[in-house]
Structures are given as structure tokens and as C-alpha cells.
């Protein structure tokens, strides 16, 4: 990374780039910048680990992170990826403050991070700041939830394999009906 790009990834610039707190008063924004750090991680690094204490709220400035889980028999499955402008580590804001997924750096990533303890402190003292952080986080979670729902629909799944016309009716149903119907002699002659 050359000097010029480093300039961009100073906390204040990164904050502007991801448009967090853009509507905040200057003092609030300074507070936010005051607790922010820019982190760079190599592809393959584990950023969060499921069940561990969440270290920080992060906004992806560059690169791509992936939420992965291990499915026995199927290996590691990437469930979704988080791209520039989106958040990671939102669980730092809510008790018990533990991560819900393991997150890997899929590519080299640049993160703007807000360590949990200091973030909570500035949010407690500055309601405007807190509102901006919550709004930013909720918007990101809303997008992610909507996308997850679409993913759950499995839209690209193929139709069921070709089926020849199948007869209807099953053995269990038949037995149930027969039991319900006591024998009544010959029918209808």
C-alpha cells in the first residue's frame, strides 16, 4: 500500500468514506473518530470467532469478509459475504456481546473498528452519536435480513425432477377411513 492510499484509511477519512455519522455535529463526530482505529488484515485471517467475546464493531472499508460455518460432511460453507460499507461485529452493542458467526477475511481487508468498551462509553455520554451508530447498524442488519430471506427462498433451485403421474391416496389414510366406517352390510342395491 503506498503513502497516498494510507492517507485514505486514516480513521476520519474512513468514517467519511463509509458515511457513518455524516449528519452528526462536529463534536460527536470527533468523539467517534476518537475511539476509531483502522485495521488491515490479510486474506484468510479470522476476524471474529463464533461464541467468542466480540472485540469491536467494524465497518468494512475495503475488501470482502465472509461469514462461514462448518457443516459436517459438507465442509466449510460461506453463508454470506460482507462488502465495503457494511458492518461486522454488531453483537458488541448488545449483551452478552458474543459473536454469532465466524468471520474470515476473504480478501485483504481494511476495517474501521470501534472497540467495544470505548464505543459503549462514548455512546453512553452522547445520545446523538448513539443514535447514529444504532441507525447505521440497523440499516445494515435490515439489508442483511432481507437478503437472507431471499437466499432462504433458494430461488435458483431447480424444479423437482421429472415425475410421471402418480396415483393418489395412501395406505394409512385408507385404514383410518375404514376404521371410522363400521360395517353396515351391502351397499345400495
Amino acid at each position: 500500500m503506498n503513502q497516498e492510499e494510507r492517507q485514505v484509511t486514516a480513521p476520519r477519512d474512513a468514517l467519511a468514506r463509509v458515511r457513518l455519522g455524516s449528519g452528526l455535529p462536529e463534536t460527536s463526530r470527533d468523539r467517534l473518530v476518537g475511539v476509531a482505529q483502522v485495521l488491515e488484515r490479510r486474506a484468510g485471517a479470522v476476524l471474529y470467532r463464533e461464541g467468542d467475546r466480540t472485540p469491536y464493531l467494524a465497518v468494512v472499508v475495503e475488501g470482502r469478509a465472509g461469514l462461514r460455518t462448518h457443516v459436517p460432511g459438507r465442509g466449510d460453507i460461506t453463508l454470506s459475504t460482507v462488502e465495503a460499507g457494511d458492518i461486522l461485529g454488531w453483537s458488541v452493542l448488545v449483551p452478552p456481546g458474543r459473536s454469532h458467526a465466524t468471520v474470515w477475511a476473504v480478501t485483504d481487508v481494511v476495517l474501521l473498528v470501534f472497540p467495544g468498551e470505548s464505543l459503549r462509553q462514548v455512546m453512553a455520554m452522547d445520545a446523538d452519536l448513539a443514535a447514529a451508530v444504532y441507525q447505521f447498524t440497523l440499516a445494515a442488519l435490515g439489508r442483511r435480513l432481507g437478503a437472507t430471506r431471499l437466499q432462504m427462498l433458494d430461488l435458483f433451485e431447480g424444479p423437482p425432477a421429472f415425475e410421471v403421474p402418480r396415483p393418489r391416496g395412501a395406505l394409512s389414510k385408507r385404514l383410518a377411513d375404514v376404521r371410522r366406517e363400521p360395517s353396515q352390510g351391502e351397499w345400495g342395491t
Partner: protein
Amino acid sequence: MTETAARFLARDRLEDLVHALARPGGVEVREVIAPTVEDGAIVHAPIESAAELPRGVRDVQAPGVYRLEETEDELVFAYAVGPHAWKRRLFPPQRTRLTFAGDDGRGAFDAADDASPSRNGDQVVFLGVRACELAAITVQDIVFACGPYTDVSYASARGKAFIAAVQCTHPASTCFCTSMGTGPAVTSGHDLALTEIEDGFVVVAGSNEGVELLESLGLPLADEDRRSSAQAAVRGAADHIERNNVGVDGSLARRLDRFPEHDRWDEVATRCLACTNCTMVCPTCFCSRDIHTSVLGQGEAGAERQWDSCFTVQFGEVAGGNFRRRLRDRYRHWITHKFSTWWQQFDASGCVGCGRCIAWCPVGIDVREEIRAVTEGEHGEDPREGDPFQAREGAQVRAETVGAGDTPGDGVPEPPPVMATVTSARWETADTVTLTIATPPGLDVRPGQFVMATLPGIGAPPISVSRISGAHFEITVRSVGQATAALCALAPGDRLGISGGYGRGWPVDEAEGCDVIVVGGGIGLAPLRPVLDWVLEHRDLHSGVYVYTGARTPDDMIFAAEMADLELRKDVTALRTVDRAGPDWLGPVGVVTQLLDPDAWAGESAVAFVCGPERMMSATLDALLDAGIASDRIWLTTERHMECGVGLCGHCQLGPFFVCKDGPVFDAAQLGPYLGIEGI
């Protein structure tokens, strides 16, 4: 046409008329089809003599009920319409549509378009056609012979029919022609028109042929008394029908399309049997299906065209789904189409008020009641463009160009498939193949269009064209049913029938000078590929090019290598996402809407092309609209069941559209309101 005054045909000279109809000029050339009594109803059958007409017979009709009663009088036309519509003669219930002869290597398709309204294939007379039925014939003229493609069988049969109409004097309780503006008076479209009065018939001619026939009979002029009693009889019929009117008119019924979620659809579905009788007896219902046949291993195959009905379960089915699975969807579709969306399609009402669907419904469902229930609270004229019945006259003029002579309309005859050879077959994924096909002579296909890919004796699925290059074109087929499985199994050198290109393609010209956004999901990328080809070939004519594609997994991506190359291009932003992936996949995981980057586009001037599963398209559409792109600059392509590809079979309807000819590409302003309506 020479003006002729009304003539009087005495009752005892009716035989002369039948004779003259059958033998104009003294030579027998025409079969006379007329009302006769058979199996307790008045049906249409060939007659040799006036004695075969129903004399002294009255009909009593009510919802689900049709009965004949005998009287002592001599009247022969004193009843309303029966179970047969004239469409039986013009649009036969079953006919051979295609024949295929020869072995696989050399065989070819041939169109069999010589269906005839008469037994001997010659001219035919329809005697006893009522005003509502003439209107119905006009409606089918528009459907079959005034579109971009013509049903040649229909048009030729239509050109052979001489119409001897009869004014309605004894309407049934099921009649509502006055509500639909079609009767009871015959005013145009006839060669002759008879009004039955006590001692005979007042006859007028409506065409030169009618004039000649009338003159050949040497009838006296009808006197004042007879003319006025003829007029009074028709006026009496109109009054009678109006007294029965349950408060429904065509303008009110035209609003049915505004109530897709009305509770009444669920209620009527509990009564409707989906037996299809209403559609079968309807004189305007025109849906058909092609049954691709083969017999054992013999080389001959073909397709039979057969009356079909939107009430059958399979009508809206495509491999892997059914667009109208629920009975409520099918009932709603039928009645909404008939009374409402037909206007948008054909500039006319699909209902002529003949009441057949009411009398012949086995459980007596009355469309008038259903319309009234759904449009409850609506009053007055439909505020949409002008008077709907003004449009009908325009339609009549169009249709007259068909009826007047033996030439079909301006449309192109529905073509038989042309045999073409597969030059290469490439598996894209485990279930999807791209076939390269040598473009047969005369085949013109544009980006976004589809072809019907016909395999003799197997089927003719519609397949989007996925590349057009020089002397070849490509189709990308996913194996989802037996016909597509058979297409996927084709190898270089194999032949298949191709007809097309059909439908409205992508308006690639509109994107000139603009940002181009392409969003594709799954197999939906296939029809978009010709857009990409076009844009990349004319890269300098466009500003930014943004390509976003989604697939289920990396292994399910079609055109994977091409799309990977696209990602490397500096002058294109291309991103691919998958729903799930293993650790080897370093691209995005999620849905395609997450890839969209509105900040990058010049929102107002961008043009978007979208294809994928319907749910994906609606999510994408929302995102594109949010980004400020106008709905008429967003183009979507959609899927429906198609049998013919040319707007004649009725299967692919989506609201007011025929997907095959109005689409498959639509702008979002058109299609948007229908995305997400269940069962439309």
C-alpha cells in the same frame, strides 16, 4: 354494395331459400349448417331441407338448465342460442397442425392448415347466426386473423362462410347481449338477415353476395306492416333481455382486473367444478394446445391442435411450477380475461352476452352474478380511455377485412418449424447445455427473443436465444422436463425443428449513450447474453457497463468462463454472487441485489436489463427504482407456459399480456403491477 329494400319470404317458401343457399346459381356447392334438434337441444348440423329446422320448438334456459318445449306454432327460429357455437366450424375442436415425415436425418415438418368448415371442403352457409354470434365471430376474427400471426386454417374457413343471420325474437333468461352491446339486432357482418314474423320472414341483404341471392329468389318487397312487426319483434326481444338484466353492463365488467384479491374468487372456487364447460361453449374462447404425437418407433410424428381450457390444471404449468395452481386463480383468470383484459389485448370485449356459459355450467354459476359480486359498489362508466363500445366498432372494421374476402388478415401465417442442425453442444453445468445451431435460411432472431425448439413427437418448448453470431445462434437449455432433457441430449449433427424468433426482444438501441445495467439470476442470464454481446461489441456507444449475476453455487453458474473474463475487463464492472459456496469461492456470497451499487450509476439516464426468477426480479426492480431509474427504462423478461409462440393458443397470458408476443421482454412500468400477484 347495392342498397336493397327489405323483402318478404312467405313461410311456405323457406324451402326455396334453403335451396338457393345450398345452390347459388343452381349448382350445389355449399353445405348449409343450421339449427336442428338433437339430444334435447338445438345444435348446428348440416341440413338438406327446411323441414329439418326446429319447428314450433321453444327453449327454456336458466343457470345450469336448458330444456326444449314443443308448441303448435310454425315458427322455426323462436329460441335463443344452443350449446354449439359457430366456432366449431371455423376453429375445429381438433385438427392436425403439424406433420413430420421422414427419418431423423432427413425429416421435415409441414403445416397442415386446410381445415374446412364443411364436409366437402367447399363453401358453407351458416344459417341462423344471431347478433351475439356474429359479434363472437368478429371477436375470433380479431384473435385469429388480425394479430402479427394468422391462423390460416381459421382465416380460410372464415372466407368460405356465407352468413345468413337471424334476428333474435325469443331470447332466454340467460341472454345479456344488451349489456355487452352486441344485440339482439343484427346490424353488420351478415350476408343476409332474416326476421321471423307470423307468416314468414322479412329478409335484408348485408353484402353483394346476399343481394344476388335475394334477387335470384325474386321475392316481393316487404310491406309496411310486416316491416314494423319485424322491428317490433326485435325491439321486444331487447326489452325482454333488459328486464332480466341483473345490473351488469360491459363497462362495469371491464373493471374486473382491478380486484385480483377479492374474496369472491375463493367463494366461487368452492362452487366451480373446473370442468371447462363454460370455456368450451363460449363462442369466443380460443385457447388450444398442441399435442406432439408419435406412434411407437415409426418415423411419422406431428402435432394435433386441440381445444384447451384455462380451467385445466395443466394450462398454466411450466416445468417446475404452475402459474395458476389454485382454482380461484383459474376462475379469476377466465372471467377477468373475458370481460376485462380482452379489451387491452384486442380492443374488444371477449364476452358477447350469449349466456351459454350460464346455461351450460353443470352447477349453474352465473357470470353476471359473479361480476356483480366482485364489482359491488362500482358505478358508472369505466374512466379508462373513452367509451369501450366505441372501440368495438373499430374492431369490427378490422375484422371486416377478414370476413370480406378469402384473404386472411395482414398477419404472417403461423409457420411450421424449420429443421436446423446442431453444430456443437457444451455443458454449462450439471443440468444445463448450450447448443450452437446453424441458423436455418429465413430465420431471423434478435436479442431477447425466443424460439420454439421442436423435437418430432416429443415437444416444442420455448427457449430463449443466448447468442446470435453470424450464421449460428445458441440456445441454453436447462433440463427440467422430458422435452428439455431431450434437447440437452442432442449432439453435434442432430437436427431439431426451429420456429421463431418470436416475441419482443431487448430494446438494445435505447441503451445507446447510457449506463447499462445487466442483472441476471441463474438460467436467466441466458437471454441476457445477447445484450452483453451487443453492448460489448458497441462498447464505445455506451457509458458505464455494469453486470451483476447470481447463481445458486459456483458450480451452477452458466457461461462461467465468459463471466470471469468479463470481471477482468477494465471497461466493465462485473460482479458475480452465489447463494452459498465452499471456501474456494472468493467472490461475494448473497443475493444479487446486494451487488447493486447505485452510487456508481448515472441513475436517471441508466437503462437496466433484468432476467431471473420472478422473486429475484421484483427485489431487483425495487432496488433499481430506489436508485432513481425510471420504470420505463428497466426491462424485464419473464416466463409463462407457451404452446404456439405466436399469440394464438392463449396459454402464456399474464394479466393483459400475451408473454409470447407482447413480451417476453417488458418494461417495468408494464410488468411491475403484475409481479407478486399470486396466480395471475
